[in-house]
């Protein structure tokens, strides 16, 4: 198969342009612009075009010639009927209007407005979802046979039991690091024993719940959004609806309930690991005995802190599951939407957890502090 070639000769005072070789995408010389420039230069002198030596021409070759001819038929053309039909196809193109919509000067304001409106829309939808879940709970109270125990226990296992190793590891390491850094400071003041107060309050009250929330939002929240999203893409949710199964009872409620219960337990577990990590580090760094640490802990940290930590765990779990399910239900049937909604779900969940944590800190500022 020969590449496309152009030959010119003068016969009886007129220029003849003979094209030969395969004028197909695979056989046109690259860059094509060089060939196009040559053809345009030839077209300017209105020669006789002879295409009959071309064994094969495809739409790329046809468009190339058509453009070189200035988008009209040349005065004299020798072509086979089949070549003519390929060229006619190229001649018939009506390019779509490719002009870009004008960018308004208020684009930034408009974008901000859209963002705010989208936030309000999401808020309204989440409130609707909460309302639906409350109605579902009321319904399940009167129809206990419909409680989705299997889904609930599966979710509890997936988002609770399977998260135990990672939360323990992260909690332990944070405890070690925090204890090590604090001990360096405390030693200079000779206030070694206050390490117990420092670690106890900060881990049980603040760090435990927030660390677990961030881990769970990334781990279980994204999984929930992706699962519900894919079920929307594959029409599984519609299939459930046609069977008369409520998606909120069967899909959303078990997830929200399971995470609300698993989270406080994970918070206790993670805080315990953090305290143990801090205790080990304090023992190695400052020679503080384990016995002293364990004895001093209840005195330094009032019980209220534990309840605050558990309460935060419950609310964070509720929040993460609600946001994950909400964005999962918003997924449109394409891959782009799935990825963007999963990202939005995780980012929103983590941000809101931090905001709610700050609100908690203000509301509980008089509680659980040693007298």
């Amino acid at each position: 198969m020969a590449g496309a070639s152009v030959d010119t000769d003068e016969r009886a005072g007129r220029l003849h342009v003979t094209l030969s070789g395969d004028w197909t995408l695979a056989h046109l010389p690259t860059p094509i612009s060089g060939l196009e420039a040559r053809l345009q230069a030839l077209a300017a002198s209105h020669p006789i075009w002879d295409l009959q030596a071309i064994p094969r021409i495809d739409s790329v070759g046809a468009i190339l010639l058509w453009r070189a001819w200035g988008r009209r038929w040349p005065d004299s053309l020798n072509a086979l009927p089949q070549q003519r039909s390929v060229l006619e196809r190229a001649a018939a193109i009506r390019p779509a209007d490719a002009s870009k919509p004008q960018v308004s000067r208020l684009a930034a304001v408009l974008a901000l407005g859209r963002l705010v409106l989208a936030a309000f829309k999401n808020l309204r939808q989440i409130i609707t979802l909460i309302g639906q879940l409350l109605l579902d709970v009321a319904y399940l109270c009167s129809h206990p046979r419909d409680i989705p125990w299997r889904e609930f226990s599966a979710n509890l296992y997936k988002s609770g039991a399977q998260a135990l190793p990672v939360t323990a590891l992260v909690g332990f390491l944070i405890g070690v690091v925090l204890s090590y850094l604090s001990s360096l400071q405390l030693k200079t003041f000779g206030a070694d024993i206050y390490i117990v107060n420092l670690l106890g309050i900060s881990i049980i009250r603040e760090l435990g719940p927030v660390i677990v929330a961030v881990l769970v939002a990334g781990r279980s929240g994204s999984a929930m959004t992706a699962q519900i999203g894919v079920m929307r893409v594959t029409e599984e949710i519609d299939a459930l609806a046609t069977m008369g199964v409520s998606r909120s009872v069967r899909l959303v409620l078990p997830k929200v309930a399971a995470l609300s219960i698993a989270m406080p337990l994970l918070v206790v577990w993670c805080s315990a690991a953090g305290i143990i990590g801090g205790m080990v580090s304090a023992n190695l760094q400052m020679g503080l005995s384990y016995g002293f640490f364990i004895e001093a802990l209840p005195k330094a940290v009032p019980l209220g802190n534990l309840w605050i930590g558990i309460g935060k765990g419950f609310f964070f779990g509720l929040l993460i599951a609600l946001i994950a399910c909400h964005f999962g239900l918003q997924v449109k049937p394409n891959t782009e939407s799935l990825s963007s909604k999963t990202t939005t779900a995780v980012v929103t969940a983590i941000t809101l957890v931090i905001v709610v944590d700050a609100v908690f800190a203000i509301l509980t500022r008089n509680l659980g502090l040693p007298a």
Partner: protein
Amino acid sequence: MKIIDAPASISPSSPADCPIIEIRGVSTRFGDTVIHSDIDLDVEAGQILGLVGGSGSGKTTLLREIVGLLMPSSGSVKLFGHSVLDADPLIRRKLRRRFGMLFQQGALFSALSVFDNIAFPLRELRVLDKEMIHELVCLKLGMVELEARHGQLMPAELSGGMVKRVALARALSLEPELLVLDEPTAGLDPDLADNFVKLIGMLQKELGFTVVMVTHDLDTLAGLATHVAVLAEQRIIACGTPAEVLAVDHPFIRNFFCSEHAKAAMQKGFV
């Protein structure tokens, strides 16, 4: 029944006069399940081969082996005289630009618009300028009887018939010499299916490509195929023109082609 000869302007591809597809001794096993044992099949330029067989007979598996998505357990598959799984990545890449595949569900990229879906293989070549790509996409849209304004739609907004058309336009965007179709009319209503079959037939006559298709729809088979290969009992039990295949005495062929509906379809298409 007549065999559509390759138009005179279409020269056989390199190396000269070798079949477009050459399958030699292909066997496929998934674990202990044998799908194919020792299959031989040739497809010549300009043929439209319909691959038929019962459910689970490995039609789609064979198709995936032809386009190199799946490696057979043994045997070789050659396209245009080169192995589809050639060790040289350049040869593999060149080979993949010479055929287009139409997937059963269309397999359009859902993140890209119709226009970008069709433009994608053209842009990947990196030799065409923007304006050329734009015109080519409009031309392909016209080929599959869609309008230029449809280019702005997203795949999620298309009807089933349109998805197939756009997928066909994308499969044809690199001017392939071979078109591989997996259940081209599955999921279309009879009227749409009929139109789609006519469209493929018309484009094939005009552009002269070779077609291999898997189908279990007799109307599609009767409307398009110049050759039929029947896959049953792990091998190809019959291959040839429809008349030759019908003459083979085999329980599967009797069941498949000789029911009342089948007879009506064959009457309509082949006679």
